[in-house]
């Protein structure tokens, strides 16, 4: 983009870029540094030796896996139905889904709370999994439908002429063709569920049911606000996503940016 024929301009660009990145790196550095202040690595061993800690990670993994399964199943079938099958009043249903796209989760707070306590799902992971899935489906269906719309109809017709019924067409033809969008959906849903804070805050009461986003708060109570241990705990909760991201950079960037591609 920028003129880089002279060495001087190349050096200037590199310096400008570095200066612009500093504010992005600074909080990360401060976080790691803060977690090593005081007793150094001992902060981490203290945090890791807490028997409750693995539970938070397991719970978050269950929530993420549950939401991904529900969203993926609902999204791919719905995208297939909306895009390739005949449904009376199809667009009405589609718009009903789209209207929920802008829905802020905090709006659901009171009715969810009332309903969840009534059916006895309070302090169970279902209280987080189901609303999270419901909130993501409108968007993932929009994404996946756009993608499936691009698959040529003759391909599906050919499958049918060869005797494949709708289920077989979906399973053996559509799913393999939609792998890129499924990857995007999985990444998007994983990050959103792993990082969600409000729903666990509202509905998960005891540490044995809580998720990683509640870990820093738990440690504030546990360590009487010993910042170094709280930061060490925070770093540990962030590590899995950072590792996942650096290993699968392209998937993450595509998946999370898919939000704005219409």
């Amino acid at each position, binding site marked *: *983009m920028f*003129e880089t024929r002279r060495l001087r301009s190349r050096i200037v660009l590199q310096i400008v870029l570095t200066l612009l990145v500093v504010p992005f790196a600074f909080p990360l550095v401060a976080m790691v540094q803060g977690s090593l202040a005081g007793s150094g690595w001992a902060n981490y061993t203290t945090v890791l030796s807490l028997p409750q800690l693995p539970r938070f990670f397991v719970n978050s993994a269950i929530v993420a896996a549950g939401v991904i399964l529900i969203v993926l199943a609902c999204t791919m079938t719905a995208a297939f139905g909306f895009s390739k099958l005949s449904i009376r009043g199809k667009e009405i249903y589609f718009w009903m*889904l789209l209207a929920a796209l802008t829905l802020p989760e905090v709006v659901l707070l009171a009715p969810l709370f009332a309903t969840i306590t009534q059916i006895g799902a309070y302090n169970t992971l279902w209280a987080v999994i189901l609303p999270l899935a419901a*909130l993501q*489906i409108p968007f993932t269906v929009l994404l996946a439908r756009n993608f499936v719309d691009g698959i040529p109809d003759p391909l*599906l017709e050919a499958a049918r002429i060869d005797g494949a019924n709708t289920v077989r067409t979906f399973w053996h033809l559509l799913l393999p063709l939609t792998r890129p969008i499924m990857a995007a959906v999985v990444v998007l849903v994983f990050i959103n569920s792993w990082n969600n804070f409000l729903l666990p805050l509202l509905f998960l009461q005891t540490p044995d049911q809580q998720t990683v986003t509640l870990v820093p708060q738990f440690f504030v109570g546990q360590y009487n606000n010993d910042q170094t241990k709280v*930061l060490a705990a925070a770093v540990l909760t962030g590590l899995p996503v*950072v590792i996942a991201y650096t290993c699968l950079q392209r998937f993450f960037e595509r998946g999370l*940016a898919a939000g704005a591609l219409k």
Partner: protein
Amino acid sequence: MHSLTPERRRVDPEPRTEAAADPVTHRRGRGDRRPGLPWILPALIVSVGLLYYCIGYTGFISTLDWDGASPEQTGVGAENFVHMAQDPVFWGAIWHTVVFFVLTFSIQVGLGMAFACLLHSRVHLRTFYKVLIFIPVVLATATTAPAFRQIFAPDGALNGVLSALGLGGLTQAWLANGTTALLIVIFVQVWQSTGVVFVLYYAAIGQIEPEIIEAARLDGAGDLRIIRSLVWPGVRGTTIAIAILSAIGSLKTFDIPYLITQGGPSYATEFLGTQIYRVSVALSQVGYGAALSIVLLVLAITTAIIINAGGRRGGRTDV
């Protein structure tokens, strides 16, 4: 994403004999004609069912005076909404949302464009910079909030850096001042979401043909001129999408003020999300919280429609 363009659907105009003979497949190019309702039902039940049920329920609660737990619910009509119109905290939250949106949107667009243009140039360590900008996107606010509270604390990292630079006069309790607290909330949001904006612009700029830029350069256009007259109009659609995303995001703001400033000091960083949470959970005024929720919902939908329509109209006059 759209490597398979809709044009492909029109590729099949020649009637094949088997297809033409079959009355079911006759209407070609409109997809499979077999009933599809069962296929969309799971999504409709989980999503539309649950969400619309909740919205309806919220609408009902918004007419009540209710603490959320007791069986005693008193219908009060529109009283909650009247109370809202006179509630300075509500108007404060609206104002903070507007300021938050204007600042985060313009800074993100500026930074995102700068990074996208810089990383499309010949620079070293491209992946390294990209990863640094994008890591904040994947981290939960809950994970980074303790770090930000520490950085902006009176004895925190920021004041430490300022003193080390000989700017000790600037040090202060950043989170105790209403204005700086709001600016911190905005900073954290920009820190978190510039990565996405950057990736979007990076992809959009990649779509602009290099020959056009090369031609402009040969005609003597400078870097900034090229960005303003060629790149910026070229990524217009992306900018509108980012506007919608950050407008809706501003209305949804909850995690950052809740975790870093608790909406304070004295409501200076209160947003609709944090106010709904505080009113419904801490104060147990569930009816009033529901009324706020309904207003938030209406604002979110209206905003999306307005920006979408405005973007489309602007697009036509551009061409």
